[in-house]
């Protein structure tokens, strides 16, 4: 570790200037510590995706040499990539963290949720998520959402109050000034906290490179059986693809985001290292979500509508 030396890389000729990554890191760590200081039962939403992995890395740094004073929560759609689930379990064990799993499959089996005709399970996550928050009495839930992802997210506060139904009302958000975060909430309400609000996809990758953070292999180029649906390469699997007229082929691909297999698309790529990936996304003419998320394409306000219902 050479954190101190790295921070001394002068920008603008000012020896005390911080690089943008150092400034973002300092801000995110501040947010983690505010939550630890003000809430009773915070939890980190951990999917094994790159944003939540960076979030966990920042939390580890924020409380070192002590352990993170939070547990982890994963909403498992039942259609996750096996490599990601393996990474999730290994990471929780490595840091001695308690992992809560809220299972969409379980809710379907119990008749509390119904499979959608299109087989997409992403929108089904909201119910198990809110159930886990309620039954565990979590009062602060960290999410890896970034404001650059989507225009409804650009309006989201760092501390986002949710009512007893988990709902987000963009018109009733608390103004957020300076670095003074207001976490007051009534019993039954909770606060979603977004420590990566001000990070972009490129920042996340540059930070992964700088900190040498391990990611699930699906983020790097590999050969995989995929088929095309709605202009995206989807992984063939038991979740319901391909259909009769869809043909499977082996392609060299990687994933830019990690989510439910039924709606997370792969991109053609030969980027095998972090540096390759950074070069690739710096040159890409598509946003992360535009390239890989089917569920955001459903309507112009798809994300906003899901967030109002309690989605992250």
């Amino acid at each position: 570790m050479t954190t101190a030396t790295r921070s001394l890389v002068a920008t603008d000729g000012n020896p005390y200037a911080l690089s943008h990554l150092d400034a973002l890191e300092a801000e995110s760590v501040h947010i983690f510590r505010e939550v630890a200081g003000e809430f009773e039962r915070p939890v980190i939403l951990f999917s094994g995706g790159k944003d939540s992995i960076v979030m966990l890395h920042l939390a580890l740094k924020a409380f070192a040499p002590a352990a993170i004073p939070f547990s982890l929560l994963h909403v498992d759609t039942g259609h996750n990539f096996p490599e990601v689930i393996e990474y999730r379990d290994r990471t929780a064990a490595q840091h001695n963290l308690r992992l809560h799993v809220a299972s969409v499959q379980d809710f379907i089996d119990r008749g509390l949720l119904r499979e959608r005709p299109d087989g997409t399970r992403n929108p089904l996550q909201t119910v198990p998520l809110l159930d886990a928050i309620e039954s565990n009495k979590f009062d602060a839930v960290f999410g890896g959402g970034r404001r650059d992802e989507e225009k409804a997210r650009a309006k989201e506060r760092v501390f986002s109050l949710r009512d007893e139904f988990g709902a987000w009302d963009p018109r009733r958000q608390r103004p957020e000034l300076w670095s003074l975060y207001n976490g007051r909430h009534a019993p039954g309400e909770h606060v979603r906290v977004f420590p990566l609000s001000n990070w972009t996809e490129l920042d996340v990758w540059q930070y992964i490179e700088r900190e040498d953070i391990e990611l699930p292999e699906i983020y790097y180029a590999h050969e995989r059986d995929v088929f095309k649906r709605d202009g995206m390469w989807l992984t063939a699997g038991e979740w319901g693809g391909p259909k009769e007229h869809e043909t499977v082929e082996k392609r060299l691909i990687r994933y830019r985001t990690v989510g439910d297999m039924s709606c997370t698309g792969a991109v053609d790529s030969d980027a095998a290292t972090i540096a390759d990936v950074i070069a690739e996304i710096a040159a890409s003419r598509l946003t992360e979500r535009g390239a890989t998320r089917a569920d955001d394409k459903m309507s112009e306000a798809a994300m906003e509508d899901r967030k109002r219902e309690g989605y992250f």
Partner: protein
Amino acid sequence: MSTTIETSATSLLRFATAGSVDDGKSTLVGRLLHDSKSVLADQLEAVEHASRRRGQEAPDLALLTDGLRAEREQGITIDVAYRYFATARRRFILADTPGHVQYTRNMVTGASTAELAVVLVDARNGVVEQTRRHAAVAALLRVPHVVLAVNKMDLVEYAEPVFAAIAEEFTAYAASLGVKDVVAVPISALAGDNVVEPSAHMDWYGGPTLLEHLETVPVGSDPSIEPARFPVQYVIRPQTEENPDYRGYAGQLASGVLRVGDTVTVLPSGHTSTVAGIDALGAETDIAWAPQSVTVRLADDIDISRGDLIAAGPAPVPTKDIEATVCHLNERPLTVGAKVLLKHTTRTVRALVKEISYRIDIDSLEQRSGAEGLKVNDIGHVVLRTAEPLALDDYTDNRRTGSFLLIDPADGTTLTAGMAGEAFDTVSTNDAPDEEDWV
């Protein structure tokens, strides 16, 4: 590995835009994002698609920024949004503040974290009431750099005298508010003149384009000349086999520099000690500066918890009597006698609104006394009494340790933004009772 880090070690500028409804702010923001190649193909495609559906021929760049359903339906911007873009030299976080009805509250929100404010003026109208209001808010929030963007130069034949007169009037007004750094740029957001690319129509202008200025303006203050302020967020005590006695105070330096060996005072208790060690997110270091997040260890075993302030250099005197300039943010008025919570750095205490000394007319900057309450968007001066002493600096000296929030204890609503001390360096006084019905 080191080469990648050095090329990526760009700095970060947080800035805010202010402009009234028809000044072309959305177009300017859209132009900055578009011309700096921060708008990607799928976003542009979505905007083109939405524009076509609305019957518009050209893509409406304002749709890039209006993110909420209600905003698109009504064609207005409701709330502050944050935008991100980057050039090879710098990363930018833009607080895009709406110019609509609730502008004071929204601009205060956007300006609170900004190091630079862009005030947009329509070249045909020059400095108007709104412009003065925007300058006043930037001055009030102590935004270090102000840029006057004189927009729609294409509609005044790109005439230098028009620009010069507006720039002169604005600079004089801003100087009277105590704003030291004003840069004026003549632009056309619609045609793209001097936003990202230099204009071919204004040979007489020798200054930077707007983006060039944003890329080169110095960011961050000089921590070496500020007293150190370290609000304690959280006490780290692992109590493990490897670290049985570790006791560190976690926080983010609000200002200044801390070195191992420095003498520090802990407030409000007033105990003094010495910095025994600094841990920068897991790695030991001998120096830290604002705004780094670190963990500080002290030589003496004294009682310190969340909410305390570790200070070096001249330290503020803790007090229960606070005078401050405030901007009221909520529809519920702030009244004399109100019992509220006050959040200052990492400490939240009970507080009483003892007095509302005056309200500031943000257009004329006159102080109007006789106020019983502050309405939403009002800026005024108040006297507060707190249940426990607080170590506040003047907001003039320190934006982080001089700021606070007032919170409704009943439902947690954020009511008011506060800045310790007087609002402006120079203000005129008008003690005549307020004629408006605004209580």
